[in-house]
């Protein structure tokens, strides 16, 4: 008598309910987080970083309240209080751009290794939400919001209740941004979706610029619903404050839950832009006349054909430039932008530059070419990538800045050159010291693990901002030669570090370590 189930049998299928599925998805986030943290090589550094994060956050939330003029109800404190609704909206805009540019946010586990596990899109959504703060732009904006709130209110009783609302806002804005990012990613993945998203982006930018040019942007800022949040956070009425907390908290919870829906929809669609790159035919180009030229061409193709690089650099080049354009930044302040853009550009791939070749690294290393030439090509391609993005930003910012003085122009040119060399040198040094095997196919991929990326971005942001501010000051000095004189030691220092990394790359054992690490 047969005992095995027949194909015609209607076997009862054990179906998990929605609650059980959600519970399982949440539990899986914990499993993945533990898996990722277990692979951290420098645990002590992780603990120190966490301690530093808590300290800086507490410092930002409290210390400015005790600075002279804080909470005065007039002057700068009042100005900042009035600006707070706009800053809350700005934070939301930043998180939307960040999540949308990275295709729905970062992954707890990269796509290929995750493919063999039953990881639900809900887990993926929650993981992306969890990783969103591990981004220097998010952290700086969050700290700035806490600090501005503290300064605007001073050491009053209001401060604690206001900071509670600000922290909740950070979470709610991030969760809402995540929902929008999943929706946009879902749209991108339908036929012609990419064109639709581009049209939407142009439309939003055009509308913003139109409002700015017509002088109505300030009115829009004044009418923002975030004013209601700011009024609630400083309200004398406990009921009003509690209502504000409730609404922001409900927004956070609602967005976290709701985000799973578009995450599931997006996960069931094929990423069109990756498909276009991988299935499209690329026209043949003639051989380059030089070895360096051919290597540069290969590296350039690896960069510009990668979805995360193209998308990331577009956002990096355009966003600060448009902000500068809308804000009518003067030339002296434009010097801060190239450092910001170059740092962001390096974080797209430069900090792990040898991962560009992926598993092809072993084959490339077997080709008869001097390692110096390979290094020069990679450094050149990284440099031009960063410089191109910075130039677009500066060009946009320059539209309304008027004619620069010779000193302003010299300071800006010096900044562009100095920060580019500075960032290239730092990126290639880190690429050599800590290579990671990563696949940069997906828009969600990052060249290094999230916690490492935070470290890199903090260090880059610090060094390039200091450089930008130095030249910003020099732009106001009449003698243009001063900028050039100051640029020389900056350049000499960065070039020396770049050459030291180049020498290290030429050492066969060290190079083999890097190649075999990225080619796994």
């Amino acid at each position, binding site marked *: 008598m047969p005992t095995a189930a027949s194909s015609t049998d209607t076997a009862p299928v054990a179906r998990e309910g929605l609650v059980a599925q959600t519970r399982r998805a949440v539990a899986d986030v914990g499993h993945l987080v533990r898996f990722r943290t277990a692979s951290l090589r420098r645990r002590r550094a992780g603990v120190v970083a966490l301690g530093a994060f808590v300290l800086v956050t507490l410092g930002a939330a409290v210390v400015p309240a005790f600075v002279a003029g804080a909470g005065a109800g007039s002057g700068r404190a009042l100005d900042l209080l009035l600006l707070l609704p706009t800053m809350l909206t700005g934070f939301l805009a930043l998180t939307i751009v960040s999540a949308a540019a990275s295709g729905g946010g970062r992954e707890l586990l990269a796509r290929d290794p995750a493919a063999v596990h039953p990881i639900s899109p809900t887990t993926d959504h929650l993981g992306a939400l969890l990783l969103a703060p591990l981004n220097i732009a998010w952290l700086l904006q969050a700290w700035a919001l806490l600090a501005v709130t503290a300064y605007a209110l001073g050491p009053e009783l209001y401060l604690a209740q206001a900071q509670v609302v600000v922290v909740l806002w950070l979470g709610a804005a991030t969760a809402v941004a995540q929902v929008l990012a999943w929706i946009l990613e879902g749209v991108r993945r339908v036929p012609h979706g990419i064109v639709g998203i581009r049209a939407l982006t142009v439309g939003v930018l055009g509308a913003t610029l139109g409002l700015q040019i017509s002088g109505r942007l300030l009115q829009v800022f004044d009418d923002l619903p975030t004013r209601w949040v700011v009024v609630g956070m400083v309200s004398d009425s406990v009921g009003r404050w509690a209502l504000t907390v409730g609404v922001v908290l409900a927004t956070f919870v609602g967005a976290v839950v709701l985000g799973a829906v578009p995450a599931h929809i997006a996960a069931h669609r094929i990423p069109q832009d990756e498909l276009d790159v*991988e299935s499209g035919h690329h026209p043949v180009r003639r051989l380059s006349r030089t070895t360096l030229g051919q290597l540069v061409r290969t590296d350039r193709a690896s960069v510009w*054909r990668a979805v995360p690089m193209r998308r990331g650099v577009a956002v990096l080049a355009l966003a600060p430039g448009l902000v500068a354009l809308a804000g009518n930044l003067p030339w002296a302040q434009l010097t801060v932008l190239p450092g910001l853009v170059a740092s962001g550009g390096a974080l797209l791939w430069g900090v792990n530059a040898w991962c560009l070749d992926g598993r*092809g690294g*072993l*084959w490339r290393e*077997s080709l008869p070419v001097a390692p110096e030439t390979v290094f020069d090509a990679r450094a050149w391609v990284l440099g031009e990538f960063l410089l191109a993005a910075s130039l677009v930003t500066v060009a946009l910012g320059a539209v309304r800045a008027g004619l620069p003085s010779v000193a302003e122009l010299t300071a800006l040119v010096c900044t562009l050159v100095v920060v580019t060399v500075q960032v290239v040198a730092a990126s290639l040094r880190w690429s050599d010291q800590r290579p990671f095997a990563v696949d940069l196919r997906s828009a969600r991929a990052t060249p290094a693990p999230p916690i490492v990326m935070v470290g890199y971005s903090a260090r880059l942001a610090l060094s390039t901002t200091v450089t930008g501010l130095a030249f910003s000051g020099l732009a106001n000095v009449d003698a243009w030669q001063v900028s050039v004189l100051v640029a020389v030691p900056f350049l000499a220092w960065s070039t020396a570090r770049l050459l030291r990394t180049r020498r290290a790359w030429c050492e066969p054992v060290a190079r*083999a370590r890097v190649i075999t690490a990225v080619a796994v």
Partner: protein
Amino acid sequence: MTETPAVVDVRSLHVRFGEVEAVSGVDLRAYAGQATALLGRNGAGKSTTMRVLAGVVPPTAGQVLVAGHDVRTETLRVKQAVGYCPDVGGLVPRATAWEHLQLAARLRRMDHWEDRARDLLERFELGDVAHRVTAGFSHGMGRRLSVLLAALHEPEVLLLDEPFDGVDPIGVEATFDVISDARARGACVLVSTHLRELAVQSCTTVSVLRGGSAVATVSAGEMAGEEGARAYRGLLD
């Protein structure tokens, strides 16, 4: 016993990665016009030995001569002499197959290489995808392109690491042809694989590696059939 000098001459090769000794005392000699298979279980040191021969990984100790050049001191000359198909991937993900060929031709200073490249692409049934980026290739397509790239410049030493892994019968036949052609023009061929039958079919000599060192070198015939399978298992244990 042949009296001709070995094209690949490995003596007491050691490769260490930190605490791990991937290769511990491999001795190996391979000759012009012959194909030598490196057989062994996973982690036996086959791929690391191949990487050393390709000039990709420097030896920690021992002497390695490839086409008369010391891999430690004349790495560039070694790279000029070899054609290498790595075990993993071996392809730049966002470059097309043709761009791989262009890069190899440029760096090897090859003239009039296009006709041979097109011929090889057709033989490996990759002609239709020559202008697509390799990230979209299947595993088998990637393997076939890797073999093709290793053979493009008709190297003095052809190093094929797991060339049959996941490859369909047409790809296997094309790889056999590449090995035969290389032997016919007097090249020295080394094939690292864990597929004994294919190794026996394509090679003249078999070296078995175990635990990072070579345990036996026999003629391919001795590793053929059921008898060869038993002998091979005996060497692995």
